[in-house]
């Protein structure tokens, strides 16, 4: 029997999340030159969406797609997904189980780890083979340091991958894997632990999740209030990015804590990070210093943020940001 890998796939709205395609890329790399199968687990409530997504998963390299469908999976919940996933694991005995390090994945993986007494390496950003052993790199202290870990002991091995760090699997144009029919799961090992979702309030003005965004426009104390953040949102919208914030801005109540970037808060690694009115405290730098390109806009020429910025603008964000938005608008026309 070859290597078997189980991917915990994830829908956002009616489409697959990019991190799922990235996980498929990791699976393909793990399988490289080995024979084996990639299976996906997908939960949701809309059968048509699930069927479309299953086809999409197959097109991206999944050999089997297991689907848990029903109202209980709206919205998807770790607790309701757990029993069907455990059933699949029992059947497939996968060597690796891979999920995105998303709200859903980071709840599921620890429960699976405890249930299966499996090793779990969370939030990986790269992997490489060294002397016949697979090594996985992950940030610790929110990116103030990095560690490389290997699995020790028997499979399954659990991984969650940080969004935006692995290339999504590429699709071979000539390969039509139309034969993969989704397998709808009807029986499960056990009833889920009790939990009911009463309500979901969508508060994110943009549909782009901060940790997955390729461009992040972040504001600090220099944004001076929620009006300042409106300017940042306009720039983010123009760039197709998401808005983030420093701890100082969140503590001051300029914006929601869910936007906080730093050692407390989220760690982001976008292609472009635009820091507006952020001085650059150590705890903030930890959360963003691995971004590919960093732009800093700050009135204070001595702000520490400039020491890590690829492009620095000493200036008032209230002047610079609207100009940037306007220039981009002109450029896009």
């Amino acid at each position, binding site marked *: 029997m070859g290597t078997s890998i189980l991917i915990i796939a994830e829908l956002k709205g009616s489409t697959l999340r990019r991190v799922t395609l990235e996980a498929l890329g990791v699976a393909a790399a793990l399988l490289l030159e080995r024979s084996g199968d990639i299976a996906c687990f997908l939960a949701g409530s809309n059968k048509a969406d699930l069927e479309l997504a299953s086809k999409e998963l197959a097109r991206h390299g999944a050999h089997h797609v297991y689907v848990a469908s029903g109202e209980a999976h709206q919205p998807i919940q*770790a607790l309701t997904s757990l029993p069907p996933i455990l059933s699949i694991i029992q059947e497939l005995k996968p060597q690796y189980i891979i999920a995105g390090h998303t*709200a859903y994945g*980071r709840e599921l993986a620890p*429960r699976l*780890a*405890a249930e299966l007494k499996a*090793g*779990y*390496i*969370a*939030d990986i950003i790269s992997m490489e083979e*060294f002397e016949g052993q697979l*090594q996985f790199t992950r*940030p*610790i*202290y*929110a990116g*103030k*340091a*990095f*560690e490389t*870990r*290997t*699995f*020790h*002991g028997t499979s399954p091995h659990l991984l969650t991958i940080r969004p935006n760090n692995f290339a999504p699997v590429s699709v071979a144009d000539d390969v039509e894997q139309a034969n993969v029919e989704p397998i709808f799961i009807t029986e499960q090992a056990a009833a889920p*632990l*009790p*939990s*009911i*979702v*009463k309500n*979901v*309030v*969508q*508060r994110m003005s943009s549909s782009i*999740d901060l*940790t997955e965004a390729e461009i992040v426009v972040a504001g600090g104390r220099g944004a001076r209030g929620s009006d300042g953040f409106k300017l940042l949102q306009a720039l983010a919208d123009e760039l197709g990015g998401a808005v983030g914030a420093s701890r100082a801005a*969140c503590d001051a109540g300029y914006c*929601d804590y*869910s936007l*906080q970037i730093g*050692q407390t808060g989220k760690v982001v690694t976008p292609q*472009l990070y635009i820091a507006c009115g952020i001085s650059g405290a*150590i*705890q903030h730098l930890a959360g963003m*210093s691995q971004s590919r*390109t960093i*732009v800093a806009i700050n009135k204070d020429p001595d702000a520490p943020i*400039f*020491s*890590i910025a*690829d*492009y*620095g603008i000493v*200036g*008032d964000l209230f002047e610079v940001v609207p*100009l*940037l938005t306007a*220039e981009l608008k002109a450029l896009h026309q």
Partner: protein
Amino acid sequence: MKIIVLMKQTFDTEEKVEITNGMIEEHGAKFVINPYDEYALEEALRIKEQNGAEVIAITVGPERSSVALRTGLALGIDQAIMICDAEHGDHSYRIAALLAEVIKPLKPDLILAGLFAVDSGSGSVALQVAQLLQLPHASAAVKLRLGTAEELLIEDAPWSGTLALVDRDVEGDVETVVIPLPAVVTAQQGLNDPRYPSLPGIMKAKKKAIIERYPSELLAEANQDDLSSSLTVRTALFPPSPRSAGKRLSGDASQQTKQLLHSLIEANIIQRGGN
């Protein structure tokens, strides 16, 4: 009501992390209660003040971790339990198993923990404990209310007894879930505003006892196989690749923005004509 708070002692987030001989240099570093655990602790103390509760904090770690428990005692927890286990800080299953073993006989109504620890950052132990104890959980809580279905105005709850109504942060959206107690709830930023210990609190805490438990005794009780070898092993530890300051853009704001956009397009960072 009995509430257990899971705590970890971590580096202060304003500390720089330095590596000496392949290890994180702890010498001279300031340690604090993991910021997310502070929210959990504060929530427990608020429940205690409002409805009455017994609050027990538990930590697993080396000797220095007792300082975090001492702070907990100064803040008003009733009991502090220290599981003395210095060598296995990154063995999450072992830590969860030890915690579960201590927690089980205490029969808590609620277990509160931080969403993740700001050092290792996996957010794994609290949920592993939930799984080992077969308890439901709600993670990333930004608001927590406890009560019966009637008190919480939940009409269709299939459970009797005390429930937790939790607003949780799901990647920026707020999801409201109901779970019956006993349960595990992990705290997200914004759940509350943690208090500082008072001077009398600190003085009183000095006299209070910290209960010590040992893996040898706990793992024997659990009748589990040897958990001394980790399921994952660190093979390297290294600092982030250094970043140096780039270019300061000159001219007035208009010239600066033009230069910036030109550079970003040139470097293929903004390549699309639109989005």
